[in-house]
């Protein structure tokens, strides 16, 4: 139960923020940060717990975003239903890409490449297809009512994305405690050994991929409702593939809070860089790249892992280990 309690406390603390801060700039920053954390949590399910490093999670983010937007615009579907359909479409994309890639037995570099390629194909197709608005993109009609999933106040958007993130953290926590999660971690640690022990590695990886894609797609659906605009460069661009993997790796790969911690650190650094130098393109991403390398080099378990290690060190200093029991010399 300890894990669930921690999640509840953290979410409650975050939920209290709009009571103290009313600044739109701060709330906007937090909304975007939590959205990236959600996309990252999706990646974390597959990459962090399952060890399958996707370099193309944009495929799911973009599919969720486009399906939400297209259903509302072209088919007059209610935004909430569009949102759910977007998540389902993302999960379906995950099932197709995962099914093909894992059936072909692609691992490591090959898996990274094939996910990247699918995202790129979708990006190019979305930039020419009429239904996605081609190069112009899609604008969702402004309709600030709760039933259209649009809110006047940023605070409500903030609470919505916080709730979505909370659900994803609960999923991660359940995963850690479930049989499926143990199989998934076994696949990460040694796929051949897991297979030899009777784990259906194909099914486990595919299940993780679908779950992972659905969570990242939810972030894409939210993007559309929040910004009311999507185009191929945003939906299927490399930026989201990179941010989705950056956040859990920096925060702590295969942990419940890694994506959240990573997103807060990365986005704060990016905004900090903008404050120092003005809005010069490139600097924020340059810092992300450098931080990614530094974290992998010096804190391979991410910031959450590094903190846990530091905590353990401090605890050892103040509570010295019990002296070894001396053998009584009988004479």
């Amino acid at each position, binding site marked *: 139960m300890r894990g669930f309690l921690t999640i509840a406390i953290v979410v409650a603390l975050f939920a209290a923020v709009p009571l103290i801060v009313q600044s739109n700039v701060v709330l906007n920053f937090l909304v975007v940060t939590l959205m990236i954390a959600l996309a990252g949590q999706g990646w974390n399910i597959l990459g962090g717990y399952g060890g399958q490093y996707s370099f193309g999670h944009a495929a799911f983010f973009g599919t969720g975003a486009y399906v939400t937007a297209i259903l509302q615009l072209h088919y007059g579907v209610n935004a909430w239903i569009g949102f759910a359909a977007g998540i389902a479409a993302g999960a379906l994309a995950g099932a197709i890409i995962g099914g093909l890639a894992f059936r072909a037995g692609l691992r490591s570099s*090959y898996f990274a*490449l094939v996910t990247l390629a699918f995202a790129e194909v979708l990006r190019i197709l979305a930039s020419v297809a009429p239904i996605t608005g081609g190069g112009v993109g899609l604008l969702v009609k402004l309709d600030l009512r709760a039933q259209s999933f649009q809110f006047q106040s940023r605070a409500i958007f903030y609470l919505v994305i916080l709730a979505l993130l909370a659900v994803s953290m609960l999923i991660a926590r359940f995963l850690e405690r479930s049989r499926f999660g143990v199989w998934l971690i076994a696949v990460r640690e040694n796929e051949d050994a897991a297979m030899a022990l009777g784990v259906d590695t194909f099914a486990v990886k595919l299940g993780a991929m679908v779950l992972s894609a659905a969570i990242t797609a939810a972030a894409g659906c939210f993007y559309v409702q929040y910004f009311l605009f999507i185009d191929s460069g945003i939906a299927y661009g490399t930026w989201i593939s990179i941010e989705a993997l950056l956040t859990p790796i920096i925060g702590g790969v295969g942990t419940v809070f890694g994506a959240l911690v990573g997103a807060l650190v990365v986005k704060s650094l990016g905004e900090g860089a903008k404050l120092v130098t003005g809005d010069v393109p490139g600097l924020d991403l340059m810092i992300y790249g450098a931080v990614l390398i530094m974290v992998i080099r010096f804190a391979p378990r991410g910031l959450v892992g590094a903190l846990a290690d530091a905590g353990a060190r401090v605890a050892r200093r103040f509570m010295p280990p019990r002296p070894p029991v001396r053998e009584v010399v009988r004479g």
Partner: protein
Amino acid sequence: MLSPLILTTAVLNGLLTGAVYALVALGLTLIYGVLHIINFAHGALLSAALFAAFFAYQKLGLDPYIAAFLLAPAFFALGYCLQRFIIGPASHGDDRKMLLVTLGLAVLIENALLYAFRADTRTVDVAYGFKSIDFGFTFLAVPRVVAFVAVFGVALVLWLIMALTDTGKAIRAVASEKLGAELAGIDVAHVYAMTFGLGTACVAIAACLLIPTYYANPRAGEAFVLVAFTIVVLGGMGSVPGALIGGLVIGVVESLAGFFFGESLGQVGIFLIFIVVLLVRPRGLFGASA
């Protein structure tokens, strides 16, 4: 309309483009063959090399073809240091971490270039930039023909290094049996770095061959590397002849697809080849095993 002459020209131009693709892919496949990872920083390094070739011409007045003789060793050293001091130590011997570090380097280098030089596109104008050779039935641009010949020269030099030098033997030993090579006293970290250096030098030469007809831009390398991934997968990861033949094939396919279906769908064609090869025959046409 569809005269065989136009078609032949399209094929020939495809072969010329394909040769430069092959050189970029050669660097990638060399690194894969030994380190068993895809170097995601390859594109960013190509962009950096294009800028280096541009500034060598602009500030020092060096002809790109002469600059190649300076940039190749410089980028060899850069690649060596990147692997020896950054990628190697950071990856803790885990392939997946190595992959991530090269991705981090790609993001870092590309955006450092964007920060320093903005998104402007820079071109050099050399005297021979627009000259072409008359082959009787068609004209081919001089810089592209030079590039074609030079690529095969570079491939020959690489083959000689691999076949005749001690470093080449050590690289081949590590590629085929890492643990055995280590036990035989080969410094694997050094061999990894040498290989990474050679791959990066390939990129520097490719940049010098490209700059007379292409441009320098922080994202210029990206387009080439996505194609190079396809070539490496098609030819078989780690296979040098595979990279050369794959490069030429993809060059022709792109040229013909662009000719028949237009530019952007031609690109989709390349990616579809890529995905199909990955899914159906991941070891490629010439690769030994996946």
